């Protein structure tokens, strides 16, 4: 079932949580609502579920207006951030809850409920824990029970609020993969909230980037990363280094640093900020013809295939820069602490003086 949200507005007292939000989620989609805390993503999810009423705007489930429909009649599956399992019920009773609350005429017979619960617990690989209480489960197990419970009534819409937020890194990764897989198995339209860029990028097939109650960009993970629509999106998706300086038509300067840039006339002379992604620069023991950006190595962290370096500019500001090198490059260079190196950016994102994104440029 597709979900459509039309110009939703929601305020809490003087605070505007959502400002004119419109969104389309196609049937069968797995969409991530990504944004920093306070961006309104959870409020949007709760409005779609019917737990909050919007001040203005409409919510549609497959062309049916559900804006005024009671939460209990919307038949959505919802997974809470803290799982909200019924603490006084066993795992099996938690999963059976929705089926048991059905009106007598619709309620399946006892055996059918039991069979459905077993089937769901097998789906989430929790069939051996059916008799346990929530207090006896780990975070990842609770998460899976919450999911089984949400799926018990075969909802066509599944909403998840920070589904992996409270789990440790390893379990999180495992569950992420598992959720993707599960989504492919059942016919459901899923919308999940996250503040973790990596999570949104890995799990969803569409990302909705939100900020301050507004939708900044909607697109596939690759699209939003490669072609960010705004400075906020660029800023929010992964770490960036902001280099502030002035431009004179051919060269960007800041203190002792120089960088030749051809912007094809897109950037006027004057103040110019450059955004540099950590993996889009190299390091060398000497400057080259285009770039003279001296830095001092202050810290490094070796983890997996990449090495993250912390660099302090030498004579051009004091904001610490972050650069990622692959392991081989790092070993070929093998610099020592406090060595002076030269930063060689490959691609830079220009930011115009009014704060918009300019063209992406290469040195030279």
């Amino acid at each position: 079932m597709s979900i459509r949200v039309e110009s939703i507005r929601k305020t809490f007292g003087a605070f505007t949580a959502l400002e004119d939000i419109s969104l389309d989620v196609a049937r069968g989609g797995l969409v991530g609502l990504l944004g920093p805390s306070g961006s309104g993503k959870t409020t949007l999810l709760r409005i779609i579920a019917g737990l909050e009423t919007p001040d203005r705007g409409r919510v549609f489930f497959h062309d049916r207006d559900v804006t005024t429909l009671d939460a209990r009649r919307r038949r959505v599956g919802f997974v809470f951030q803290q799982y909200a399992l019924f603490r006084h019920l066993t795992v099996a009773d938690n999963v059976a809850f929705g089926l048991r609350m059905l009106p007598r005429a619709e309620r399946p017979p006892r055996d059918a409920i039991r069979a459905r619960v077993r089937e769901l617990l097998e789906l989430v690989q929790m069939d051996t824990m059916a008799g346990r209480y929530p207090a006896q489960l780990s975070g990842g197990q609770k998460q899976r029970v919450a999911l089984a419970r949400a799926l018990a009534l075969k909802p066509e819409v599944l909403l998840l609020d920070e589904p992996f937020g409270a789990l440790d890194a390893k379990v999180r990764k495992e569950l992420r993969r598992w959720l993707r897989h599960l989504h492919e198995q059942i016919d459901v339209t899923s919308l999940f909230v996250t503040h973790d860029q990596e999570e949104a990028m890995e799990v969803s097939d569409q990302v909705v980037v939100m900020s301050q109650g507004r939708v900044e960009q909607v697109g596939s993970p690759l699209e939003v990363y490669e072609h960010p629509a705004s400075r906020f999106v660029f800023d929010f998706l992964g770490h960036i280094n902001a280099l502030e300086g002035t431009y004179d038509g051919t060269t960007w300067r800041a203190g002792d640093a120089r960088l030749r840039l051809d912007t094809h006339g897109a950037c006027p002379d004057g103040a110019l900020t450059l955004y540099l992604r950590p993996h889009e620069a190299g390091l060398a023991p000497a400057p080259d013809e285009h770039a003279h950006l001296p830095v001092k190595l202050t810290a490094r962290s070796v983890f997996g295939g990449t090495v993250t370096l912390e660099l302090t500019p030498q004579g051009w500001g004091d904001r610490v820069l972050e650069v990622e090198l692959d392991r081989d490059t790092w070993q070929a260079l093998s610099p020592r602490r406090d060595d002076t190196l030269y930063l060689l950016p490959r691609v830079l994102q220009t930011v115009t003086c009014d704060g918009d994104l300019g063209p992406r440029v290469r040195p030279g």
Partner: protein
Amino acid sequence: MPRYWHQWALILAALGAVVVLLVLPLVLIAVQAFSQGATVVADNLTSTDMIAAIKLTLVVALITVPVNLVFGVLLAWCVTRYEFRGRKLLTTLIDIPFAMSPVVAGLCYLVVYGGQSAFGKWLDDTLGVQLMFALPGMVMVTVFVTCPYVARVLIPLMQSQGTEEEEAAVLLGASGWQTFWYVTLPKIRWALLYGVVLTNARAVGEFGAVSVVSGLIRGETLTLPLLIQMLNEDYNSVGAFTAAGLLAAMALVTLLLKTVLEWRQHHKLDAAQETTP
């Protein structure tokens, strides 16, 4: 285990205080009651006044406890589940019966509902109902005095538990009543029982407010605490102490019940934690 002499001294001092302040009076009640033999105690227990007082005390408690149970749950629900203007004021108002002397409460009721007031007169003239110096008035003041207990026990608990489980239930299709019955009530049942025990203890033992509105009619409007006072003034010390012993026994049973409930709850929690993988 205490290791130094001053630790032992402190423990002994505490034990001494317990004996002098708590145990000794209770023992003395029993001693005094039985000072003229068991038959006198039995006679006193079976006297018509005593039986009437026991009945009245139980009737008042039996009405008060359910009324305040429902009221307390509704109030706690209202205060913790909804955001509305005057919510803070309401939570403060709940405490009035705690803060106010019961005698004052009794007098207030007398002024509003008594035969001297316009409302009391109207009730008497048109409906023939007399609230004060009768059972209704005694129940009313007891309800007033004991109404904060259940709500006060529930509010912090329900606040800390939050509303997510209720929201989850609603999203799974549960109606308001189903949500309360299958989700909220099981979460608060132990606290609720504790609140009921406290309410009951207070309702049975209430003296001040009830004495103002009872009118002290022997065999009609005397509850156990009032009867004790009456017998004591009549120099029937065996009767007074027998009634006092009965009241103390009721309090002890209530206390025992509360302890058992608490113990069971802890036990259950421990059991749940022990089996955690």
